[in-house]
C-alpha cells in the first residue's frame, strides 16, 4: 500500500517538479529578456589605456591662416601657398619628425582624383626636408587594401623617391581613444602609433564630391585615422566629420582643387567626373579651408552641416573671408 502510494505520489511529484522547473526556466527566460542589455559590457580598454592625439598645431598669425593659389601646376601652387602662410619654416623646424596624411583611400590611379596627387604629396615631403625635418613619414589607413592603394595611386613611389617612409596600417598601430564631449568617438580604435612620436602633422586632401557627406575635403580626410567598423559612422556622417575636426589638430592642411571631382564621389571612376579648377588651398584651419573648398563644388556652407558643427565646437571658422586669405595666381607660362 505504502509502495503504491509512493509510486502514485512519485509520479505526481515528478510532474509537479517538472512543471515547477519549466515555470522556473520560463521565469528565468523572461527575467533575462527584461534584463538584456543589447550593448553588452563595455570594451575591455580601461580609461587609463585610452590614448589622445597630440595637438600639432602652430601658433596662429593674423592674416596667415589661409592661402588660396590658382594655377595648374600643383608643385608651384603648393610652394606658393605655403610661402604665403610664412614659409615651410613656420611649420617644420630642424630635426623634427613630420607625418603627412594624404587621402589614399582607394586603389585608384591619380588621374581620377579620388586620392591625393602623388606629385603634390612628394613636393610637401621635399619641403619638409628642406626645412630640416629629420624624418618624414607618409601614412593612411585606406578603405581598400593599403599596399594596393599606395602603389596604384602612385603615392608610395613618389614619396619614397622624395625620401619619406611609407607606414602601412597594422593591427598593433591602432589604439582606443575617446573624444572628450564626443558623441561618436568613444572608446574607438584609431590609427595612433605613427602619430605618437611625431612633432608635426600635415593633411593633404583632394576636393571631391561625396555621395554621403556632400563633399570630401580636409576634415573628411581624417576619417582615415579611424579603425574598426568605421562605416557605421556613415549613418551620422556630419557628426563624425565634425568630431574628427575636433580630435585632430594638424599643423597644416592642404586642399587640392587643381581638378575637382564634381560628381560620383568619393570614388569617381571617370575623368569626366572632374573639372579643372586650378586652385590649391593651404590653411591652419580645416574648417576655413573646407568652407572655401565647398564653393568650388558649387555648394554653400549650409549644404554641408558638418562645417557648422565643427565651427560651433571651436574647430575653426566657416567665415574664411574674415581670415583675410592670402591670394596668388601662378600663370601657366610660369611653369
Amino acid at each position, binding site marked *: 500500500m505504502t509502495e503504491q502510494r509512493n509510486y502514485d505520489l512519485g*509520479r*505526481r511529484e515528478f*510532474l509537479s517538479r*517538472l*512543471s515547477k522547473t*519549466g515555470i522556473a*526556466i*520560463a521565469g528565468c*527566460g523572461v527575467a533575462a529578456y527584461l534584463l538584456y542589455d*543589447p*550593448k*553588452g*559590457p*563595455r*570594451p*575591455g*580598454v580601461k580609461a587609463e589605456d585610452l590614448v589622445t592625439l597630440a595637438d600639432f598645431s602652430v601658433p596662429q598669425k593674423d592674416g596667415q591662416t589661409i592661402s588660396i593659389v590658382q594655377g595648374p601646376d600643383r608643385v608651384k601652387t603648393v610652394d606658393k601657398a605655403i610661402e604665403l602662410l610664412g614659409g615651410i619654416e613656420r611649420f617644420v623646424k630642424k630635426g623634427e619628425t613630420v607625418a603627412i596624411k594624404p587621402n589614399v*583611400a*582607394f*586603389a*585608384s*590611379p591619380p*588621374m*581620377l582624383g579620388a586620392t591625393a596627387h602623388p606629385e603634390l604629396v612628394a613636393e610637401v615631403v621635399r619641403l619638409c626636408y628642406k626645412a630640416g625635418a629629420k624624418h618624414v613619414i607618409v601614412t593612411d589607413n585606406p*578603405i*581598400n*587594401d*593599403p599596399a*594596393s592603394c599606395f602603389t*596604384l595611386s602612385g603615392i608610395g613611389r613618389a614619396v619614397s623617391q622624395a625620401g619619406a617612409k611609407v607606414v602601412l*596600417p*597594422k*593591427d598593433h598601430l*591602432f589604439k*582606443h581613444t575617446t573624444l572628450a564631449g564626443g558623441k561618436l568617438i568613444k572608446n*574607438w*580604435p584609431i590609427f595612433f602609433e605613427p602619430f605618437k612620436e611625431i612633432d608635426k602633422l600635415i593633411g593633404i586632401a583632394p576636393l571631391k564630391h*561625396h*555621395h*554621403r*557627406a556632400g563633399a*570630401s575635403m580636409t576634415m573628411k580626410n581624417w576619417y582615415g585615422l579611424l*579603425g*574598426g*567598423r568605421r*562605416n557605421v559612422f*556613415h549613418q551620422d*556622417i556630419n557628426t563624425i566629420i565634425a568630431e574628427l575636426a575636433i580630435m585632430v589638430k594638424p599643423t597644416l592642411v592642404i586642399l587640392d582643387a587643381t581638378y575637382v571631382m564634381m*560628381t*560620383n*564621389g*568619393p*570614388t569617381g*571612376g*571617370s*575623368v*569626366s*567626373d572632374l573639372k579643372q579648377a586650378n586652385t590649391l588651398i593651404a590653411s591652419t584651419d580645416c574648417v576655413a579651408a573646407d568652407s572655401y573648398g565647398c564653393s568650388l563644388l558649387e555648394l554653400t556652407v549650409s549644404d554641408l552641416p558638418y562645417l557648422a558643427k565643427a565651427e560651433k565646437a571651436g574647430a575653426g571658422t566657416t567665415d574664411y573671408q574674415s581670415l583675410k586669405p592670402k591670394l596668388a595666381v601662378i600663370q601657366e607660362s610660369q611653369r
Partner: protein
Amino acid sequence: MGSNRHRVRQKAGLESVVSICILAILFLIGLGVFVKQSDYDMSRFGIDTASIELSSQQSGLIREKKPDLVSLRPAGFKTLSEAEIYNPENLYEKINGKAPLYLESSFVELFTQRFVNNEDENLWMELFVYDMATTRNAFSVYSVQKRDEVELLPSMQFAYKTSNGLYFVHGKYYVELVGSAESAELLQAMGQVVDKISSTLPADKDAKIDKLALFPEEDLVLGSTKLYLANAFGFGGLTDTFIARYKLGDEIITAFLSKKDSAAEAITVFENYYKFLLDNGGKELPTTNPKIRFVDFYGTLEIVSVAGPFVFGIHEAENPQLAAEVQKRLINKLFESTKTLQND
C-alpha cells in the same frame, strides 16, 4: 472500481501530455539558445573587433567565392591582382561613401578584377561587376551615375564610354571598366572585355524597362533617362521615378513619371509632392484642373499631375511654354500607351 481505474488512466494520459508539452517547450528554449548563440556578433558585446577585423578590412576580400573574371582578360594584358568579392556587409570597404547608393538599390554582390598591360605597367584597368538583382536596379545605378557628354554605345541597350572607361548594364549587372589612363589601347582592350562579358556572363541582356516606353520620343535627349528608386528631387515620397530630358531649341525640359500601385496612392503622392514644393519655397500658380498643379519654384516651373496610377510632370523648367508642350506630349503618350488611363 472500473470508473476509478478509468479516471486513473485518464489522469495518467493527461499527465503524459502535459509532460510532453513541457519537454517540448524546454527543447524549444534550448533550440532557441543554440540558434541565437551561433549568430554571435562580437562587436555587440564590446569585444574589440577592430583588430580582429583589420586584416580582413585591409585585404578587402572575401576569399570563399570567386567568379571567373580572369577569363575576361583581354589580349596583351595579365591580371594585376586577385579577384575580389564584396557583399552588402563590406561593400563600403571598396567604394566607401558610394556604397549607400548601391545598397539602397538592392545590391547583391560586387566582383572586381584588375588587368595590366604586359608591356606598360601604367596601363591598367579595373573591372567592376555589380550584381543588382534586376535589370531595373542595374539601370537605376547606371543612370544615376551616368556622366554627361559621353559617347553612347548603340550596340547595347544602356552603355557609354568616356575617355578612360566603359559603363553598361548587362541584365542584372551594372558593369564598369575604369582605366588608369586616357588611352586608345586601354579602350580597345576594354572592348574585348565587354565582348567576353556579353558572350559568357549569363544575363537577360535584352530585358526591357517598360516604363521608359511611356516617354514620348520626340526631342528626347538620347541616354538622358534615369531611374531614381527613392528620394527623387529630394522628396522622400517620390519613389521609382523615371526622368527624361527633352531638348527643344536651346532649352532642356525635364519630365518625370512614377507609377504607383493604385490610383489612390498616386493621388496621395501627388498631393504630398505638391505640398513638399510649397513647404520648400514654391508658390502656387492658378489652375482649373484638380489633377494638375503648377508651382513657381524659385523662378522655375514645376508641373505635378496625376492620372490613374501615374504621378508625372515637369521639373524645374525655365520656359513655361516649352514645359507645357512637353507635358502635353507626355499626357498623350501616357494615354496612348496605357488602358488604365483611358479608363480613368
